[in-house]
């Protein structure tokens, strides 16, 4: 009797599952659609927006924020946040540039490794504050946002490192292309795929979602919450360190103010990318797409000859539109899902 009762139910729920799967994919699809629309409209108004050079520029521009968004996603998934990334980028960019300028003999890979390590160390400070000392992440990283930047200022003491001071080979990293794709974009893509795979396919990756979904349940499930959270912060710090070197290579002019205020851009990318700010859900692909969308909006506004004074406003409006669109889509699908369950 139970088996007969179970049959139609499970069949119905199977259908529900396929729909759920599709919804899950739609989360990122929404951003892709928005991107498509942006490119179509802008391209129609000014075809040069679709040229190879323009696309290359957009990829270059979004690479750094995308990298940071990937790292930030790791942290946000665990129901934390890292506001200090911009300061870490600044610290790493300045540190790297300074070493390259003052000690021309140091091999570039060593400098890059050093910057990544510096970033990881900053991430470890955050991670220990949050994981071990249980300071809420927003407070801890708002604190280190000021603190790391303070160190940066003290270190720089008003000094600026210019492109001329750094070796050509290093600067080329910021602009060189491989098979027509700019190197920074390739690096970001490689990191994105690697992190994306790990989050989906490693137990430790799944545990990050578990922690963000319910920290108390994670403790009871025997997950080593503090260690995982620490790891997420360290990884994010390391990526911010990497982003710092990329920044130095790409822009060539580095002082203590590098990347000031970028943390909001990164969080905006993450949020637009559909990563739940209270943890537990979202993917790095969404976050990276969010970064590309934001960079494309900025580029499109510049290309569309929009009045310079109106750009900020339109940028904000488009950002809101993207979030709202995404939400409306999710609501519709949820409603459809409920209807489908109805006998």
């Amino acid at each position, binding site marked *: 009797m139970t088996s007969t009762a179970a049959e139609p139910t499970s069949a119905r729920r199977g259908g529900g599952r396929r729909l759920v799967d599709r919804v899950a994919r739609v989360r990122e699809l929404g951003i892709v659609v928005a991107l498509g629309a942006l490119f179509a409209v802008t391209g129609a108004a000014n075809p040069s927006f679709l040229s190879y050079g323009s696309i290359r520029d957009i990829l270059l521009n979004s690479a750094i924020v995308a990298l940071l968004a990937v790292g930030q996603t790791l942290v946000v998934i665990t129901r934390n946040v890292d506001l200090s990334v911009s300061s870490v980028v600044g610290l790493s960019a300045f540190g790297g540039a300074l070493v390259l300028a003052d000690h021309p003999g140091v091999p570039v890979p060593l400098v890059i490794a050093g910057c990544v390590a510096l970033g990881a160390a900053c991430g470890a400070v955050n991670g220990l504050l949050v994981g071990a000392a249980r300071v809420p992440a927003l407070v801890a990283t708002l604190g280190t946002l000021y603190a790391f930047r303070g160190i940066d200022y003290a270190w720089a003491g008003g000094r600026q490192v210019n492109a001329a001071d750094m070796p050509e080979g290093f600067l080329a990293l910021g602009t060189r292309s491989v098979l027509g794709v700019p190197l920074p974009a390739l690096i970001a893509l490689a990191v994105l795929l690697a992190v994306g795979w790990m989050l989906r396919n490693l137990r430790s990756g799944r545990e990050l979602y578990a922690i963000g*979904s319910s920290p108390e349940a994670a403790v009871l499930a025997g997950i080593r919450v503090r260690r995982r959270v620490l790891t997420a912060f360290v990884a994010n710090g390391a990526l911010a360190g990497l982003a710092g070197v990329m920044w130095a290579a790409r822009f060539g002019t580095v002082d203590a103010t590098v990347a000031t205020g970028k943390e909001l851009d990164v969080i905006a990318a993450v949020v637009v990318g559909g990563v739940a700010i209270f943890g537990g859900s979202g993917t790095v692909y969404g976050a990276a797409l969010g970064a590309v969308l934001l960079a494309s909006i900025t580029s499109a506004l510049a290309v569309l000859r929009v009045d310079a004074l109106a750009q900020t406003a339109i940028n904000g409006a488009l950002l809101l539109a993207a979030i709202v669109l995404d939400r409306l889509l999710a609501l519709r699908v949820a409603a459809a899902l409920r209807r489908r369950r109805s006998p």
Partner: protein
Amino acid sequence: MEDTPVLSLLQVSKAFGAVRAVREVSLELRAGEAHALAGENGAGKSTLVKILSGVHRPDSGRILLDGEPVEFAGPADAQRAGVAVIYQEPTLFPDLSVMENIFMGRQPRARLGLDRRAMRAATAELFGRLGVHLDPDRPARGLSIADQQLVEIAKALSRQARVLVMDEPTAALSGQEVARLFGVAGTLREQGVALLFISHRLEEIFELCQRVTTLRDGALVATDPIGDLTPDDLVRRMVGRELESLFPKQDTTPGEVALSVRRLTREGVFTDVSFEVRRGEIVALAGLVGAGRSEVARAVFGIDRWDAGSVEVDGRRLRPARPTAAMAAGLALVPEDRRQQGLVMDLSIERNIGLAGLAALRRGPLISRLAERERARDWAVRLRLKFARLGDPVNVLSGGNQQKVVLAKWLARRPSVLIVDEPTRGIDVGTKAEVHRLLSELAASGVAVLMISSELPEVLGMADRVLVMHEGRLVAELDRAEASEESVMAAATGRSPA
């Protein structure tokens, strides 16, 4: 070797501030034996469970594993030692799929990444054993409390542990699920697993267990073979006094219709539900887990929107999806999930009790703390709440006492129609009798009571009329005389329209 317990506690104690939750309790769990833990709300059962599972470290005393002393620094240690726990409150990850909840940290691996197919199959197999109809891929968010409990059970079973600890696993379940759970538990026991079982339904203890340990106020009363005890003995050990009859429903003559629900439909959830509740009447809403009873209650109270139909209180139609309107009309809802819906866990007892009736506490534009405290004290005394200070946050109360706080919060509003969803879930026998007396008194004083309950004895003992739901539809209405275990179950499983 028969004699070495798998896991034992020796003289363990645990205090929280001034509350000595567990006092020098010893306990032995043997392979192939089901051991019950009984005691009133706040007796220290869950605390003991948390000591066994590594959540709390005992202040004194020792834990022995196979006779060897061990220390559990955290839940991970206990899990490694082969202890699986079903906690009293479900601990799921709402964003993750049901199957991932079950296998978190132990997901089957394939060559490249996780083997989701194997995980799905294993989940389906577990659900098959438990008779659960849930899609392994659906997220845990939105599961009813009963479904959550079932997932917790599946999770614990999947660990294939040597010791399985179950803290009130059946509190949210109805008879059919309980029977299946017991079937599975019996098999495990035969395979040599040691079981620790906690429940406030004494008949379950007698059905499943071989020995029973009773706690009172954190201290050990006795450990007896189950055969040596009668239910009355057990109750006496728990409460330390005699209890009067358990279901003192007074007979009342129903007055006029207070709540009238007509053709209420929420697509995908319930369909065409119509019923009435009169003043002085207790109407029970019975059914299997997932039948849609709680959903009806939520819609009637205005938490969820309905798609068709109407709700009237005292002849006045309610606006849909407006809890404030429902409350103004005299409706009150004691929800089924007290931690999520009933209480603000971080707030104090008095604030929680005052929360649903802030207007009544106002003196001018400000809230009178005195009035707030008076109201809380009044109801705490009436419901025999066990607490240290009214200013303590409710999350330090035991589960049953938390339930009393929710009741107090709504009763303090003096509603004319009271909807209670699983009002005695996790409440001990003594308190349960008090809650029943309370509901009965309320009905006698002219309140219309709609009671959702998965406990058949409670339904049969309390209700003037029984409504039965099956798969989102009202399938039977039985009056007191017609209602019996058989007739209700038959309707609930969709076998026979009454």
